[in-house]
Every structure is written in structure tokens, then in C-alpha cells.
């Protein structure tokens, strides 16, 4: 498939990238690994006038331990390199497992953690060629006035398919965003807008530069539902991170944003309660290759499975 015309700019610093963005009056897109963006452009789902390559920005490539008790991960660190970082393996097992479960090895070597977090939401009736979409009619996410999955719906039901955002949220991660109006650091769970047309509350021109994770040892697990184990986006994914008797669980792959749950006093009763709550809250629709009701049931089951694995009880 041939790409449409756009300009290409290679930025050497974050400030330069923001300046390029300004030059293109907001019609440019930032490019890191390109594993999400280039297919979107090929399908004409994104039509930038320019692509600004962030890959050569050195300051975004490092993983470092700060004195303040944070692990700082540059947004350009590839999923593969982050997975093989000894600190991640030792301190953040949920993140290790979700990185390992992301796509396949070759794409892990190309895709970056920043890009993985800011990937566009997906839908079986959205990620299609232009010809297909014209024949079907444009939905909300393409700028139309309807949803092609749920008749008469007033909103978009596309799914947020990052494996790593849920596990980072269970680890209380924060992200640093740098843009034309300065920089800000926010909790990761706060960057989701809840609107399928632009799923992130990221200002135009802002670049995700760093992910900050509190450097505290956790136990954790990530459970993912997919058709092919070797690749595929999550059809539901549950991350659990535990410190002592309390922890956090987060579910992704269903709906526009990951959903966070606090787990207090983990025992058989609270596990059952949390699983029932995730089941009740999950509202998948028929926009993936598996049925909505199956994904809904699996949401609760994946949580139980993840917690039991963390507690080393095995799968009952």
C-alpha cells in the first residue's frame, strides 16, 4: 500500500520537534517507532502534512534511577530494551509481563514505550482501508455522525489496546509532557479523554517525553486475552501489582481508557468482589474478533487468574 504525500522532518531535540509542529500549524504528527502511525497513514486514517521523527532525540533514549526514588524511562526506549532492563524485571513484574505480551519480538524492537502508550484506539470497523470505509459510511471516529457498531449510539466504542499502560497505571506511573506551553507531569490514568475521536487529553503539539515509575518493589502479573499468542492486540488485558496485602488492578483492551481498581486486604472474598466489579463495569461491544459477552466474562476471569498467580496459588 502506497503512502500519501507528506513531508519528513528529523528533530534533534524536543524543542526543535515542537517548533516543527508549530511550523505545520498543528497538521503534523510525531513519529517514534512508527508501528502504529505508519499503518494509520497508509489507511488514510491519519492525514498529516508532515511527520516529525523523534527517534534521534538522545535525551529520550535513557532509563535512569533518580535519587528521589523514581525510575525514569525515556519515551523512545524500545519495548524490547525496557523488557530486558534488570530493574523492570526485579521491581515491576506486571510491566515485564505486559511488555513481553506486546505484539511480537520484531515489533517490540521497533515500537517505543511512549508510542505504545499514545497509540490510537482501535475498532474492527475503523481500522480499514479508505475504500472500505467510504462504502460503509464514516463513523464518529472518522468524522461522521454515527457508530457503525452500535446502532443509534451517541459515542465511540473503540478499544484502547496498549498492554503496557494498564500495568504502568497499577505501578502509579506518571508521564511528563512537553509542549508549546511548557511542560507538565500527570498521572498516567489522567491522560485519557474518554472521547473516541481524540482519546487522549494531550494538548496539540505536546510530546510525551518521560515515564516516571515509583521505584518500589512490587509483585505483579499481566493476563491477556488474544486469539494468537504470538502477536495480536489485547481483546482484554488485566494487570495487577501488589505491595503487601494491598494492590492495584487495571483493565485495558475494553473501551476507550484503562480502568483502575484498588485492591485492599487481598483475600478470597475481596478477589471475588473485585472480579465481579470488573465484570459489571466492563461494557465491551461487538467490535473485535471475539464476542462481547465472552470478553466481558473473561475480564473478571483474567483478574482472578492474575491475582492468584501473584499470590502463587495457581489457577483454580
Amino acid at each position, binding site marked *: 500500500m502506497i503512502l500519501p*504525500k507528506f513531508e519528513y522532518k528529523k528533530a534533534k531535540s524536543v524543542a526543535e520537534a515542537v517548533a516543527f509542529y508549530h511550523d505545520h500549524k498543528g497538521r503534523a504528527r510525531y513519529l517514534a517507532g512508527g*508501528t502504529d502511525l*505508519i*499503518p494509520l497513514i*497508509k489507511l488514510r486514517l491519519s492525514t498529516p502534512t508532515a*511527520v516529525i521523527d523523534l*527517534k534521534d532525540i538522545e535525551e529520550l533514549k535513557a532509563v535512569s534511577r533518580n535519587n528521589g526514588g523514581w525510575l525514569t524511562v525515556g519515551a523512545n526506549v524500545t519495548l524490547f530494551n525496557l523488557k530486558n532492563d534488570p530493574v523492570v524485571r526485579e521491581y515491576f513484574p506486571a510491566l515485564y509481563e505486559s511488555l513481553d505480551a506486546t505484539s511480537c519480538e520484531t*515489533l517490540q524492537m521497533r515500537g517505543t514505550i511512549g508510542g505504545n502508550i499514545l497509540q490510537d484506539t482501535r475498532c474492527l470497523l475503523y481500522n480499514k482501508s479508505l475504500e472500505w470505509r467510504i462504502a460503509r459510511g464514516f463513523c464518529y471516529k472518522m468524522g461522521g455522525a454515527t457508530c457503525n457498531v452500535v446502532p443509534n449510539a451517541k459515542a465511540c466504542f473503540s478499544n484502547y489496546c496498549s498492554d503496557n499502560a494498564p500495568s504502568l497505571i497499577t505501578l502509579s506511573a506518571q508521564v511528563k509532557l512537553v509542549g508549546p506551553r511548557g511542560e507538565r507531569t500527570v498521572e498516567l490514568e489522567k491522560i485519557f479523554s474518554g472521547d473516541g475521536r481524540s482519546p487522549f487529553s494531550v494538548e496539540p503539539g505536546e510530546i510525551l517525553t518521560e515515564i516516571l515509575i515509583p521505584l518500589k518493589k512490587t509483585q505483579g502479573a499481566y493476563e491477556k486475552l488474544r486469539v494468537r499468542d504470538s502477536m495480536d492486540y489485547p481483546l482484554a488485558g488485566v494487570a495487577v501489582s501488589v505491595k503487601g496485602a494491598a494492590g492495584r488492578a487495571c483493565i485495558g483492551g475494553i473501551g476507550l481508557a484503562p480502568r483502575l481498581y484498588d485492591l485492599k486486604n487481598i483475600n478470597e472474598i475481596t478477589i471475588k468482589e473485585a472480579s465481579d466489579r470488573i465484570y459489571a463495569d466492563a461494557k465491551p461491544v461487538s467490535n473485535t474478533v471475539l464476542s462481547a459477552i465472552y470478553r466481558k466474562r473473561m475480564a473478571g476471569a483474567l483478574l482472578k487468574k492474575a491475582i492468584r498467580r501473584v499470590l502463587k496459588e495457581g489457577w483454580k
Partner: protein
Amino acid sequence: MKTIRVNIQVNNEKNVLQVRPYETLLETLRERLNLTGAKEACSMGACGACTVVVNGIPVRSCIVLTAEVDGAVITTVEGLKENGELHPLQEAFMEKGAVQCGFCTSGMIMTAKALLDRKKRPTKKEIVKTISSNICRCTGYKKIVEAVEEAGKKMA
């Protein structure tokens, strides 16, 4: 639209090219350099048929812009042969019969090459994990994994 000048070393040959900013590496390899070993299949970075090795890392050339790899050292399946002798992976793929229609083969070989270059004698589990990045819809992978194991032994 203005073209971009890129320097890329492909299979030990230096190339200075003027490419379109929206040109993929796969287009450059196939259409400018006539290296048609890397195949276009899904065109979305999902299947791996277009895999080439860029600076030691397997890369899906259909979703990488040529402008992104300026200055890189690239190996395609055509560059594996040395002094007229086939690469152990190519030999092993033939010996084990790891090819049916052949469309995925060059991508499989390049993904496996990157693995064998970074790891001597990988375990079967590691091979399966790496090779599962690429889609083959005819052989069922068994012979492909056997071929990579065989090549790993020869190269160790």
C-alpha cells in the same frame, strides 16, 4: 515535493539516494535497488514478509520510511551469500525443506539471522518465540524451527 538525500549501506554497497519523504524502505529496496527478496504482503507491519536487518535489528521495511534509516547498515536476503557460498541459514532452509510457497521465507531468514547474530546457539524456545513474529501460512513452522536450530549449530 522535495526529495531527501539519504546514505544507506545495503549489502556492503554504499548508496546515495534521493528519495521521496513518504517512501518506505521496502519501496526503496525493491524499486530503486532492485532487491526484490523482501516481499510486500500485508503492508501493515503485521506479517513480517518484508523483514530486513537494519543495524543488527530485524525491521519491517514496509512500515519504515527510508528517510528514517539514513546512515544505516542494511542487510537483505540477497546479501547473505559470501564468496559464492550460501549462508548456513539458507542451506538449512533447503536441507530441512522449510519452504513451501516461499513468500515468507526471506523474512523468516532475516528474522532468524538477527537472532543468531545476537545470540549463539539459541534454545528451541527462543527460536520459536522469535520466529513467531513472522507469519507463514503453509509449513506449520516445524521445519522452519528445525532449520534455524540446524543453522545455529553450524554457526556456533
